[in-house]
């Protein structure tokens, strides 16, 4: 259920060795604590997601793990090696896509991937990688002539071309159209199905829910909750969310009265919208409507959905993951 990741000596001997393990990670920038005492363990062969809003510290965390940033405190172990000792061997085995990289404008797609391929001792053929990210048609285009989504896919191609054991993806699907996003999801799934490890960051909960074996929800440099997407949603104690607002903006029911409705486990209000976390929609909705009718209040809107990671985040922080 909702649990801080904590080292569990009994379990770790039974499970495959951790791909990433860090303890007490801290990174400060002047007055901001970007990463605030973070413990994390990514198991070998899993797809692990860091989910959090802007400024949560996802990029800072992932760049520390990639050996690109020096933490102020804490220890990092990647694939059983440390950055102080095994840096070169480690880089051979990692694939990295940074949140933003401006690749050389005047090189073609193919030249760019071939350049990255040349840095590694082993790897995949360039054409095969271009095929995988669907850039074969564009292979002779200059990078400066690509759309932003195509550039994003090129960045992923550069991360994949070394055939890494561990793939770091920092917001890989931001800026992609739905179709490209889905095809990148499939690519990540294939990669993981081959027994390799992925650590990705995202602020799309549906992405985390679909791709990730486990998800850590992050805010203000800390992990608020960690588990499989199903576990996290189940931790709400209910499966549905019922949102409504009233026509006159108020005069409705009190918190306690709402909580007394059948099947309601949580009540939250923000900007005049009331969100109820409920076990069964079909018992709660009629009761709510009856109650409102009795008081002469009229509905402005009513909607229900399956509880998602977004709702988990809202419950944990009282905020939305993204500004809609």
């Amino acid at each position, binding site marked *: 259920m909702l649990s801080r990741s904590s080292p569990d000596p009994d379990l770790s001997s039974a499970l495959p060795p951790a791909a990433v393990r860090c303890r007490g990670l801290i990174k400060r920038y002047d007055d901001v604590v970007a990463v605030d005492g973070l413990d994390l363990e990514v198991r070998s062969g899993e797809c692990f997601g860091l989910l959090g809003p802007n400024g949560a510290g996802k990029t800072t965390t992932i760049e520390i793990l990639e050996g690109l940033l020096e933490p102020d405190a804490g220890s990092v172990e990647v694939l059983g090696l440390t950055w102080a000792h095994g840096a070169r061997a480690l880089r*051979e085995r990692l694939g990295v896509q940074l949140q933003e990289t401006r690749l*050389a404008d005047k090189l073609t797609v193919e030249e760019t991937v071939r350049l990255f391929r*040349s840095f590694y001792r082993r790897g995949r053929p360039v054409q095969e990688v271009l095929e995988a990210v669907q850039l074969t048609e564009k292979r002779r285009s200059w990078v400066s002539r690509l759309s932003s989504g195509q550039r994003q896919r090129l960045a992923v191609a550069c991360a994949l071309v070394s055939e890494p054991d561990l793939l770091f993806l920092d917001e890989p699907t931001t800026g992609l159209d739905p179709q490209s996003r889905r095809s990148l999801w499939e690519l990540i799934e294939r990669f993981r199905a081959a027994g390799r490890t992925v650590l990705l960051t995202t602020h799309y909960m549906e992405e985390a829910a679909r791709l990730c074996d486990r998800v850590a929800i992050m805010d203000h440099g800390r992990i608020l909750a960690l588990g499989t997407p199903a576990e996290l949603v189940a931790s709400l104690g209910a499966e549905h969310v019922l949102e409504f607002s009233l026509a006159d903006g108020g005069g409705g029911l009190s918190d306690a009265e709402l909580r007394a409705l059948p099947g309601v486990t949580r009540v939250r209000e923000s900007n005049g919208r009331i969100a109820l976390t409920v076990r069964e929609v079909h018992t709660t909705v009629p009761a709510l409507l009856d109650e409102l009718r009795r008081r002469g209040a009229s509905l402005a809107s009513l909607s229900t959905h399956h509880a998602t990671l977004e709702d988990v985040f809202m419950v944990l922080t009282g905020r939305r993951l993204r500004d809609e």
Partner: protein
Amino acid sequence: MSRLEHAPLAQLTLARIREFGREPEAVFWTFFFPIVLAFALGIAFRERGPERVWVGVQAGPGARALAAALQGADNLRVRVLEPAVAGEALRDGDVALVIVPGGARVTYRYDPTRPESRLARLATDDALQRAAGRRDRVAVSEEAVEERGSRYIDFLIPGLIGLNLLGTGLWGVGYTVVRMRTGKLLKRLLATPMRRSHFLLSFMLARLGFLAAELALLLFFAWVAFGVGVRGSLATLAFIAALGAFAFTGVGLLVASRARTLEGVSGLMNLAAVPMWVLSGIFFSAEHFPDVMQPFIRALPLTALVDALRAVMLDGAPLAATAGWLGIVALWGAGCFGAALAMFRWR
């Protein structure tokens, strides 16, 4: 090809060459700017046979006779000026000397610190005295010598080659590196097992790809347009130029090693280049500077490089004779490269 495909240094160098070659402006400044400059300076300072200077005769009684007497002089051109404008013409350099008639005595008005004015005074005096009946006591005959290799353009071309090597070394590297830094491409490269020295070396090797073309074009132009030749061996010249290109690319890498903005790197490049433009004897001999500055000037890489280029082009010096200069150039290159590698900022 497939061997090259997996050689990171080769791929990095190819990338540099491609990026440069696909940037029309960079190509223009590298290849054509020095030619434009050589052309302009070559025209401005071309040998015009015996020098003719303008002198002015101030209008007044006797002016006409004076002007007529001077008309016959080989190296003078004469005009008559109203007193009101004579001073201004002298100040502006329209005339090098003003002759003020005054009965039996004429006055030469000129600035004795200007070589042209001193020449004008001698020629004017000579012409006037002869016209007045002076006879030469010593018989003289003249022998004009115009040797190739001793003209200004001969002096200038090796300087321009050096200047261009400096320019492309600095500007070809500085902006590219800073752009890669601000675009986080350096950080991305740091995340690969790429050797950092390979990255820096690729800039030096890529210069070789263009150097041959750059050098050939400028030498060919100088030969066709001004008849500037190379006395020494072309291979020696090419070797020296390659060493210079390496060294200045090293300087460029050092200059760009920490800068975070284009403005910052631009300032640093000017800081590195301008003293050498002025001091290293490109446009006039560095000997003109005071003795106390000479050791410093001699230690500059551009001075040493241009001295070596001139020795080969003008005097036909063999490679061994330029060893001292080349040592200085190589030291600068290696020192800057090492320093750049040590202090390079990758993010």
